């Protein structure tokens, strides 16, 4: 008996010395990849609107539907939010279909939406994230900056055709602005480290300006706060962002350009730390602030920002350290460093990074200068494309203009008429005549890839403003789309807002 017990104990003890010959062969299991494993996607959602997402799910060993478990979670991902904000589970369905409203969502905040798919057989999951920005019903539509008496406001025509008036004053009660000058909507999300990354919206008026929250349209910063040192004189006319990313890349902001009191200020942005604000007045290549810019700026991947000085009668390239003259070899058709004329209007042409500048000579005659802001590798350094005296009646006195980016046309207005100037044939044709009492005050062209592009014109009869929306055909013909919209003040600028 003793021997048996001792043998048993020895066997148990020796069992600890047993060499593990376990089976370590890897067994393939179901790997779940959502939306191709892409980086988090940015989605703009209207508050109280529905959000529907049908993600693409790939499985290496597809499981039955009953073997998969889904979870949609969301937490406030705004920069000012605490690190311990609660996470809400908003759905356990395969596809998301929720109303983006209270109590989970707050207007103007940013959220991280997580989607997790778990294979119950293995417990392994695939995840994907979306970055949500919650906006209001003014997320998309035509915006009209209008003068009402000595103050300003803006209105919108929403995608469903409804008109919303007095939006600024309704949302920002008690904060009247001076005579409006310009409405600036950035084309890209801006990361300036003074507020959460987002598209930017600026409201400029005769003696100041402000940044509005792009999602809520509420006042965010005074004009002076946007600068490292607030300008003593505030007469802003331009406050925009330009991109020098190559055409094949997804555009992103490279430099901010502000034109205030005729002088230019730059804002260097990029993936480096520290606040990005507009700096001091940039000096000319001669080291002086003796210049007055026209309120236009264009740019490209070779010359990030180009402006025109109506004092020195020349184009200048903007660098954050100062204004620069162009190398001599870039000019053949005309001299970028000596146009000898005033700039009347400048806008994009129908080739990316190509621009049309309408000039006026000393005799009052209109000229078209064409140039580009990109020189591809191996190309000639020449950027001037053409110079011709415009056969376009009234172009030197135009009251509004918009460049087409789908055809070689510039739409411009004199009095109550819209004319279309064709840059290639150097001819102009009357396109539309408004009632004699109406004068065109502003125009904007909107390219709609895959759809019908639009030209919007605003008129003023001395007491009320009206808006006309035209469809633009692929050959540049315009046709009035629906009825005119009334009830506006004197519209001074137009923009199209996207989420």
């Amino acid at each position, binding site marked *: 008996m003793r021997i048996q017990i*001792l043998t048993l104990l020895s066997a148990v003890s020796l069992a600890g010395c047993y060499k593990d010959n376990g089976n370590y062969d890897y067994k393939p299991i179901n790997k779940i990849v959502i939306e191709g494993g892409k980086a988090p996607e940015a989605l703009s959602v209207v508050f109280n609107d529905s959000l529907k997402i049908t993600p693409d799910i790939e499985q290496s060993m597809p499981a039955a539907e009953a073997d998969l478990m889904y979870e949609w979670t969301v937490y406030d991902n705004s920069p000012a939010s605490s690190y311990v904000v609660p996470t809400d589970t908003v759905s356990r369905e395969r596809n998301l279909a929720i109303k983006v409203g209270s109590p989970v969502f707050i207007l103007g905040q940013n959220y991280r939406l997580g989607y997790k798919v778990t294979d119950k057989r293995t417990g392994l999951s695939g995840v994907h994230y979306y970055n949500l920005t919650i906006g209001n019903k003014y997320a998309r539509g035509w915006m009209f900056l209008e003068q009402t008496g000595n103050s300003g406001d803006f209105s919108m025509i929403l995608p469903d055709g409804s008109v919303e008036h007095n939006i600024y004053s309704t949302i920002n009660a008690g904060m009247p602005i001076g005579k409006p000058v310009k409405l600036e909507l950035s084309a890209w999300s801006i990361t300036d480290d003074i507020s959460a990354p987002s598209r930017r919206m600026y409201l400029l008026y005769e003696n100041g300006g402000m940044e509005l929250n792009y999602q809520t349209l509420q006042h965010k910063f005074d004009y002076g706060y946007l600068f490292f*040192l607030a300008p003593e004189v505030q007469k802003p006319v331009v406050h925009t962002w330009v991109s020098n990313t190559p055409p094949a890349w997804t555009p992103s902001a490279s430099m901010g350009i502000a034109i205030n009191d005729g002088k230019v200020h*730059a804002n*260097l942005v990029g993936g*480096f730390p520290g606040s990005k604000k507009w*700096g001091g007045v940039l000096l000319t290549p001669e080291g002086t*602030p003796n210049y007055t810019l026209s309120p236009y700026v264009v740019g490209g991947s070779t010359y990030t920002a180009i402006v025109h000085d109506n004092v020195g009668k020349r184009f200048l390239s903007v660098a954050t*350290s100062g204004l620069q003259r162009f190398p001599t070899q870039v000019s053949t058709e005309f001299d970028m460093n000596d146009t000898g004329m005033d700039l009347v209007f400048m806008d994009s042409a129908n080739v990316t990074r190509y621009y049309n500048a309408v000039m006026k000579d000393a005799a009052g005659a209109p000229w078209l200068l064409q140039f580009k802001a990109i020189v591809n590798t191996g190309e000639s350094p020449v950027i001037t494309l053409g110079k011709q005296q415009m056969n376009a009646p009234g172009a030197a006195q135009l009251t509004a203009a918009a460049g087409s980016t789908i055809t070689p046309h510039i739409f411009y207005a004199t009095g109550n008429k819209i004319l279309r100037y064709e840059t290639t044939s150097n001819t102009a044709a009357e396109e539309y005549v408004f009632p004699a009492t109406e004068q065109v005050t502003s125009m904007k062209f909107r390219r709609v890839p895959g759809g019908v592009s639009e030209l919007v014109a605003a008129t003023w009869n001395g007491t009320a403003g009206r808006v006309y929306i035209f469809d633009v055909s692929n050959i540049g013909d315009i046709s009035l789309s629906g009825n005119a919209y009334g009830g506006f003040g004197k519209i001074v600028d137009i923009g199209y807002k996207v989420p």
Partner: protein
Amino acid sequence: MQLRYIAILSAFAGLAACSQDDRLMYQQDSRIYFTKNVVNADSLVYSFAVTDASKMKDTAWITLRIMGLPADKDRAINIAVSDTSTAKQGYHFEIGPLVMPADSFQKRIPVILYRKPGMKDSILTIDLSVQESADFKPGYSDRPASSPIDRLHYKISVTDQLLKPARWDVSLAGSFGAYSETKFRFMIQSTGKTDWNSTIYPADQQFLIQTVKYALYKYEEQYGPMTDENGERVEFP
């Protein structure tokens, strides 16, 4: 009977294997050392020349960190001023309360610097070292890769001369051109910025460039070209 003992012994031996290890914790004496990192390098250069002429004293800060756990009482730190120092304690400088507060891992100690006439033409040094106190023994004595001196020593240089920033040639020359004392003094006056040795973010540096260029334009408009101590015209590229 004997078998029963063997069985019990085996059971205990087996169970002993199930005991939990004690956590690995710092068990040695409390120690203290100077922190050494990018924002708190192992030496500090202070110049009164970049401040207003009426400023007669200022404070430099040194940071000390403990090894071991914090205590529930204030603890004494012992910092010695080495004989190699050219600044005189009580005249050129004083070191603030040398106390590690209760429940603290780290403490910034003030070093009060006094502006004295002799600093106009010389650079004085304050060589500090960690010594054993009633509560702390000296801590790490190693030298981090980027530090010329170890964690038990710290050097403060103080002067009333305008010193060329150590990072001028590497980080500032490209934007501001060749160094001269006249130019540097003008940069300080026109921007109000006194610390040119710390990292300057790109957007801030652009603003500084724009500011000095505009200030030089205004100066020349009133007084004509500015000439530096070498007889060269002050210019920014």
